């Protein structure tokens, strides 16, 4: 969505988001904003997210008050001082800022369970009309309290807007629904293919242990950061796996923005992105990974982090599983998984030995690439991990 028209809109913070609630405004009318500034905190089904603005200007008016849930694309604020014509928003009836009831979330009358008697009686004709019109009688309220539901009541209900979210859902339920929607879309639309490659890590982990020895705890690097960097470098070299499947074709990502699947305490997960992960030195990437994990679990993520990912990595080794066959985040085309690092008997140079080994897996969109590309990609990840000095 081009954001150059002097209007700041509710952003889409992921393919699974339809609506968002303004939790907090971080700016007020008169404030000067620049591209990239945080302007609001938006609550989605998954998390509370700090949202950036992508244009310069001065905030003229906040159009949606704190607490209101609106659809993606709804104007949230108008900017003054930009060259922007004051079109769309100005076309709406003038309204006092913020205090006025903003476009109220559509909500049909819902029978209140406390006051309503068990269930209103229904006349046979009303029942037939309900069936014809596809009206759920549970949501029909008789015009005259205590009287049976009449055909007129049914017809009135038929033209009333459908009840939006009738009851508020808790965050865990909302998160589950959001994941359900996105993952179902992935499995419905994306013909996944899966590849697996075992990678011996003797040299890699010895290098890492030497690097971490005698460092303060906060300077230490985890294997997860090595995996992330190796994937980012491989994705840069194989751009056909780094991007999106959109409108029947592959669109390369502008840079390698590595999504990282992070399990949340108490259930659910998010996969925010580290921008330009291929260009970050290892210790910086580790710092970003730590920051992202901490903010995903306890604090707040940024809007751009929720939408930028061009390829995602998931690490389930800490949970003890050997390998993970992932589900791709639409509209991305690849997801790379790492399992637990385990000691394995390993044949190399005509000899058996015991090596720490990790299973790297790739789930990729067969519309965008074929197995041959995927195999080369995993080989590249291995080569990167075998040269940790260059990560």
């Amino acid at each position: 969505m081009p954001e150059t028209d002097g209007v700041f809109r509710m952003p889409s913070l992921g393919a699974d988001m339809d609506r968002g609630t303004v939790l907090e405004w971080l700016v007020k009318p008169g404030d000067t904003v620049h591209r990239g500034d945080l302007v609001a905190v938006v609550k989605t089904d998954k998390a509370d997210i700090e949202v950036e603005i992508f244009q310069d200007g001065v905030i003229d008016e906040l159009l949606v008050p704190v607490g209101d849930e609106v659809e993606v694309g709804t104007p949230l604020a108008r900017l003054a001082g930009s060259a922007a014509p004051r079109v769309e928003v100005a076309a709406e009836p003038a309204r006092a800022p913020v205090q006025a009831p903003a476009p109220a979330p559509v909500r049909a009358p819902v029978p209140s369970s406390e006051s309503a008697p068990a269930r209103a009686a229904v006349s046979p004709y009303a029942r037939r009309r309900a069936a014809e019109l596809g009206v759920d009688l549970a949501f029909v309220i008789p015009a005259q309290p205590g009287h049976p539901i009449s055909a007129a009541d049914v017809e009135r209900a038929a033209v009333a807007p459908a009840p939006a979210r009738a009851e508020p859902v808790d965050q865990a339920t909302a998160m589950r629904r959001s994941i359900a929607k996105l993952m179902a879309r992935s499995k419905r639309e994306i013909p996944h293919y899966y590849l697996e490659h075992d990678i011996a890590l003797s040299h890699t982990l010895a290098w890492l242990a030497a690097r971490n020895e005698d460092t303060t705890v906060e300077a230490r690097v985890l294997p997860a950061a090595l995996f992330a960097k190796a994937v980012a470098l491989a994705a840069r070299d194989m751009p056909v796996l780094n991007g999106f499947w959109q409108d029947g074709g592959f669109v390369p990502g502008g840079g390698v923005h590595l999504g990282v699947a992070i399990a949340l305490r108490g259930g659910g997960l998010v996969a925010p992105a580290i921008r330009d992960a291929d260009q970050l030195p290892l210790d910086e990437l580790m710092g970003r990974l730590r920051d992202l994990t901490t903010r995903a679990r306890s604090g707040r993520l940024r809007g751009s982090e929720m939408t930028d990912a061009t390829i995602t990595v998931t690490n389930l080794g800490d949970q003890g599983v050997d390998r993970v066959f992932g589900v791709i985040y639409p509209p991305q085309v690849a997801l790379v998984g790492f399992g637990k690092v385990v000691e394995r008997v390993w044949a190399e140079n005509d000899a058996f030995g015991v090596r720490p080994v990790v299973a790297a897996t790739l789930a990729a969109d067969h519309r965008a690439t074929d197995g041959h590309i995927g195999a080369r990609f995993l080989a590249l990840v291995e080569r990167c991990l075998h040269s940790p000095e260059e990560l």
Partner: protein
Amino acid sequence: MNDAEAEVRKALSSVAPEADLDALPRDADLQEELDLDSMDFLNFLIALAELTGVHVPESEYAQVRTLDACVAYIAARMGAATE
């Protein structure tokens, strides 16, 4: 409860805020019992270092796996670290 134990509990709470530490078996593996991944465990050690000045080397992680072991490890080094 000694100082070391108080600090260990504080550091654990920072990575597992919802955990009931009083119900935590003293000899149970912390990572398993509190469902800490390696990032959580590192954050726990970082919090612990900030609170006590003790930086547990990677090669000695095995000595801080349980509440009892960790408290003993920290208690033995806290004095040295702050002097």
